[in-house]
């Protein structure tokens, strides 16, 4: 099968800054793919390389098997939802959505009909005559989405699409975007720094750091089997434990990752396990997060609601299942 987007050893350097540094990547057709990473990790530059706004310093990019070098943005079958939406302020919503058809020379009646369908698709029917300035953030985002989908792109790029929305709206849009992607069957590639968003929406996630991809995998892979300390720490704030701890508790070599929710905290002092002291207790709604001092390490554990929570300063015993401690391949 031909990959929707493929990067072969792609680099983009700005002077001495390596924004993207020898990245290899394959996104499959119809996939909902997330690029996750802290700001400045190169994920947005990767998106701009696919859109054609940046050109690789080295390496090759292919979009559905065709080499992308020298193809200007307006000839790529790829569309973008911009972080600031970039709606044309002097056009009304309908003209914004129909812009892609207008520049292709589609007749007026045809493009109005198609644009109205697109607005209905993003659940904004009848908003065509308004100006972008008269819309809320969530509505602008839907217009930007409709505008980007009007040319029926093979790949849709979304740059921090939900970043400017409030929490409730963000959760709704996550579900909607996912449903839209499944029904259209278009490859979606979206950039985010929010690990929760990446895990809940994407079929696969690439974790970026310092211009490189640290790990690519399904959300389950990334979450339960992080390849490196960076991934373990960035995705879901895991407990990263040093090799001597791993050696003692599961007789293997390498750094380990231990999810906070995998640690059982027992207040029975005579139980078997690792003795620890509670140094902080913070209530986070569905669970309580404990800071623990164990074997000279600072560990975090989450205790689900309904379970007795030990007090600060209490001595407890920690235990975890044999599979809970994941040993990471990479050192970094």
């Amino acid at each position, binding site marked *: 099968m031909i990959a929707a987007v493929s990067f072969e050893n792609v680099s983009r350097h700005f002077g001495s800054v390596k924004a993207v540094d020898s990245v290899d990547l394959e996104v499959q057709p119809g996939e909902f793919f997330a690029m996750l990473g802290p700001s400045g990790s190169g994920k947005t530059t990767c998106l701009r390389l696919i*859109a*054609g*706004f940046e050109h690789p310093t080295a390496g090759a990019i292919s979009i559905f098997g065709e080499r992308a070098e020298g193809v*200007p*943005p*307006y*000839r790529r079958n*790829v*569309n*973008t939802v*911009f*972080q*600031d*939406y*970039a*709606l*044309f*302020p*002097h056009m009304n919503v309908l003209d914004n959505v129909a*812009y*892609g058809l*207008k*520049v*292709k020379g589609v007749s007026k009646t045809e493009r109005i009909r198609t644009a109205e369908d697109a607005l209905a698709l993003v659940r904004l029917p009848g908003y065509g005559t308004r100006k*972008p*300035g008269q819309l809320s*953030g969530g509505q*602008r985002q839907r217009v930007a989405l409709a*505008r*980007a989908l*009007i*040319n029926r792109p093979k790949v849709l790029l979304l740059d921090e699409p939900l970043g*400017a929305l409030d929490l409730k709206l963000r959760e709704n849009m996550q579900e909607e975007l996912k449903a839209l992607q499944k029904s259209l069957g278009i490859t979606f590639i979206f950039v985010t720094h929010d690990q929760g968003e990446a895990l809940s929406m994407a079929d696969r996630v690439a974790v970026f750091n310092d211009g490189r991809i640290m790990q690519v995998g399904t959300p389950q892979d990334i979450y339960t089997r992080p390849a490196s300390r960076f991934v373990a720490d960035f995705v879901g704030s895991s407990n990263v434990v040093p090799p001597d701890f791993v050696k003692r508790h599961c007789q293997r070599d390498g750094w380990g990752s231990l999810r906070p929710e995998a640690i059982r905290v027992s207040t029975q002092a005579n139980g078997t396990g690792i003795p620890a002291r509670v140094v902080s207790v913070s209530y986070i709604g569905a669970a309580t997060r404990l800071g623990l001092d164990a074997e000279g390490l600072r560990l975090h554990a989450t205790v689900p609601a309904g379970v007795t929570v030990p007090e600060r300063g209490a001595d407890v015993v920690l235990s975890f299942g044999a599979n809970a401690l994941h040993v990471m391949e990479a050192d970094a």
Partner: protein
Amino acid sequence: MRSDRKASAPLGLKVATACGLLFLHVPILLIFVYAFTTEDKTYQWPPPGFTTQWLGVTWNRPDVWEALTVSVKVAAIATLIAIVLGTLCAAAVSGSRFFGREVISLLIILPIALPGIITGISLRSAFSLMDIPFSTWTIVLGHATFCVVVVYNNAVARFRRTSGSLIEASYDLGADGFQTFRHVVLPNIGTALLAGGMLAFALSFDEVIVTTFTAGQQQTLPIWMLEELVRPRQRPVTNVVAMVVVLVTLIPIVAAYYLTREGDQVSGAGK
């Protein structure tokens, strides 16, 4: 709402404001009054009588029409040159980062800060060195030097307020460079260009100093007026022309003010 907003200003301040306004505008009003006086040799106060005959006299003077034609032609062409060059400069300076960008920006603005006499002398010697005969075209070039600045300033401010992602969005949706300029860039900077163009036209229309240095036998309207003042013949004609100049330059300046005020919201700041 603060209650003291409605409180009136102290009397002293009111008097001072009135004096300031009178100082600024009474001389201009005098020009208007003398356009209708019956006496045509000296500016006698109070005017012995009022007449509208000078409007007709002015209308029938071919030298006024000649000077007006030169002025309009010069202002129009200089403005056109300024719009093209000023917009291109503004696009380059705001659209990209390069070494010496701020210096170039300063060098573009400099002609308006320089005294007109310096611009005039330097242009005159440059034209002489290059053996360019003085004509309407040398006046146009002289005026273009400061007209470019006005257009540039307006355009660069608008470019800075226009989000760069708008242009990228247009490319992304399949528009090439020309379509992007026509459908996205031009509508966004249009009012700024119009405002800049109007100011440039007004500046050129009443320019004297640079014109004196760059003109050959041609007389623009302001130069004609200057010459007219030393010749005591049908003096009120000059005043009629002055009145027209005030009106002609006032309209574009007021229009430019309203045009730039409307575009105050940041284009493309869609968050």
